[in-house]
């Protein structure tokens, strides 16, 4: 049994009741001041754990880059035990991640473009007021040797027509499908009904071992992820991928509108009642209807049903959900066969949150908007595999070199939307798909447990 009170809160909890957020970026110039900041935060109970007796009005969580750990004075023999991807950081990994062209680091937003972020501070509020109050008190606590790098990053959930589910800027309900994790019960408040585990040999879903997401526990196949030293530093800690992903909403809408005219001609009996060709095409590219309902369970029209226990095995050719669709790539469930064994080590806990104002339908503007992609994994190989092999490449899904039509890195790629023999709908190929999502910043972070934060604050870390 693991200790919820020692794990930072936003890993296993979705913070759905904290719709307002702000991300602050810190540089540590003085190790002593950096450590005293951590100590002050811990002593005042400001770092939010996964377990609380009463829901707070605001939550605060911290993560550190490799440079940040070094700036806090972590000895080299400990630093050397961290994984290579983390030591290199996201800028160095840019090419491998598909952050090229306008997504390359030279085009990133500040502070990512020119500064070195040491500490990422994630502050969430149940209300705008609670968020601002927590940000204000946090900023007051900053010692002289720790400075904030501007600009900070406001973010928040938004929904449509007062519905409960939150949306991302292309209009889809987001955050639906996170891993169901062993030992995390729904009763504890951390699990949600839409969470989904990995498929087993019988085609059912089983919960995923905690070790896939938290260091120090067995993961898939009983394997322990490599642990940085000392163990107290890594046990109950994890790694975070933070990416600022800008969504070009007008470009997405224009492309869908243009392609939808041709797509509509592939449907012999016409579109189902109440469904536009744009809705249908966008759903095929995403792999879900905009309201979040599954294309597998509801292939003809959206139903607002958010049941998430569907599988792809009965749709091997992608007649309902295309093989190259975004959600089928990022969590293929049973689509790859072998009882899920070839996909089970590549799951991520996603805690993304949108930034920027939503663009109303039929409007255009020059505002910048997107999603802060936040993913937790017990090794960056999990994220990098998904990004490189499933999002930017397509071989596992019979798509050869074609990438994810929504989030992939290719410019001018293509996607086949398979036909459906039962309805007579013909296959359709989307050509010249622009890159709708550009990377504008980010890095790889270590998320220490509360005990590890106290160890870091003490400055008495020994690797052995």
């Amino acid at each position: 049994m693991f200790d919820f009170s020692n794990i930072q809160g936003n890993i296993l909890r979705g913070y759905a009741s904290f719709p307002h957020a702000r991300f602050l970026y810190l540089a540590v110039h003085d190790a002593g001041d950096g450590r005293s900041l951590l100590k002050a935060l811990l002593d005042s109970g400001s770092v939010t754990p996964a377990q609380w007796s009463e829901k707070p009005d605001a939550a605060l969580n911290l993560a550190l880059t490799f440079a940040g750990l070094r700036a806090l004075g972590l000895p080299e023999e400990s630093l050397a035990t961290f994984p290579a991807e983390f030591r290199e950081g996201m800028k160095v990994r840019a090419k491998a991640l598909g952050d090229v062209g306008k997504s390359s680091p030279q085009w990133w937003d500040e502070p990512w473009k020119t500064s070195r972020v040491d500490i990422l501070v994630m502050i969430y509020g149940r209300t705008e007021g609670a968020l601002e109050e927590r940000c204000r008190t946090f900023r007051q606590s900053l010692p002289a040797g720790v400075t904030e790098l501007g600009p900070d990053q406001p973010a928040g959930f938004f929904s449509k027509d007062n519905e409960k589910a939150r949306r991302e800027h292309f209009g889809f309900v987001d955050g639906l499908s996170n891993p169901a994790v062993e030992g995390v019960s729904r009763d504890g408040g951390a699990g949600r009904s839409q969470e989904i585990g990995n498929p087993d040999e019988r085609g059912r879903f089983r919960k995923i071992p905690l070790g896939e997401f938290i260091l120090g526990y067995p993961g898939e196949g009983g394997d322990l992820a490599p642990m940085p030293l000392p163990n107290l530093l890594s046990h109950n800690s994890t790694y975070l991928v933070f990416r600022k992903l800008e969504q070009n909403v007008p470009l997405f809408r224009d492309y869908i509108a243009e392609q939808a005219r041709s797509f509509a001609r592939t449907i012999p009996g016409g579109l189902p009642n109440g469904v536009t060709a744009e809705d249908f095409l966008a759903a095929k590219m995403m792999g879900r209807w905009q309201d979040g309902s599954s294309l597998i369970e509801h292939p003809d029209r959206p139903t607002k049903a958010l049941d998430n226990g569907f599988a792809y095995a009965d749709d091997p050719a992608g007649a309902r959900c295309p093989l190259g669709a975004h959600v089928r790539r990022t969590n293929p469930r049973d689509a790859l066969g072998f009882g899920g064994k070839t996909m089970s080590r590549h799951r991520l806990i996603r805690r993304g949150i949108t930034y920027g104002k939503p663009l109303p339908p039929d409007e255009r503007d020059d505002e910048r908007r997107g999603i802060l992609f936040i993913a937790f994994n017990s090794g960056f190989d999990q994220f990098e595999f998904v990004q490189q092999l499933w999002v930017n490449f397509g071989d596992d899904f019979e798509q050869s070199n074609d990438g994810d039509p929504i989030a992939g890195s290719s410019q001018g790629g293509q996607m086949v939307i398979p036909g459906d023999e039962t309805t007579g709908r013909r296959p359709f190929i989307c050509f010249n798909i622009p890159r709708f999502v550009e990377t504008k910043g980010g890095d790889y972070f270590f998320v220490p447990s509360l005990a590890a934060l106290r160890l870091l604050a003490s400055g008495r870390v020994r690797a052995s």
Partner: protein
Amino acid sequence: MADRARNKDGLGKAVTFNVITPMNRFGTCVVRVLLWIFDRWKRTQNTAKALAFLPFVHWVVIKRDRFPQLEGQPAEKLNYDYLFFLSTFNGPWETYIEAFADVLYVPLDLVWFWSIRYPMARPVAPLKRYIKRNQVESDHSYSAYPGASVRDVRAGLEVRRELELFEKNSRDLPPDKFATEFNRLLMSVQNKLGSFGPIPE
């Protein structure tokens, strides 16, 4: 060293993989029997074929006195026979080992169990360390289709077969029947039309 072919367009998709491990005489006998059984009992081969990132897997036993020598080179005095594992794969090294350990661990353990200090396939971390210690990098790689993965080759063959069938069946058809036949063709190859080529550098 070259673990994969490369041409002017980029890196090839097939990565070479060679592991050579020592075995005692008893192990050599057992492994020969096992390989003989695997050769005839197709289940393991079929599973390996279904792992579509796997172009090629081969085990061979090299007796201690059968190692080749250059002209004039004296024969080495070896204490063990050796099991030579040759393969190519598409994708990352770690994923390849993990898929082997998760899907094919039974034949893997049966054959490699007789190699000195083999740690068993699961958990996979000791297996990865074992393989790293015993892996031999390739000096040269050649690939007839460096831009093609196993799935690309299979897809290409299927598209050709379907096209030839279409060419035969659609001759002299009136437009409406030609359209029907064309749609049938498109449906049959719809998931074989991805753009392929070497991995851009």
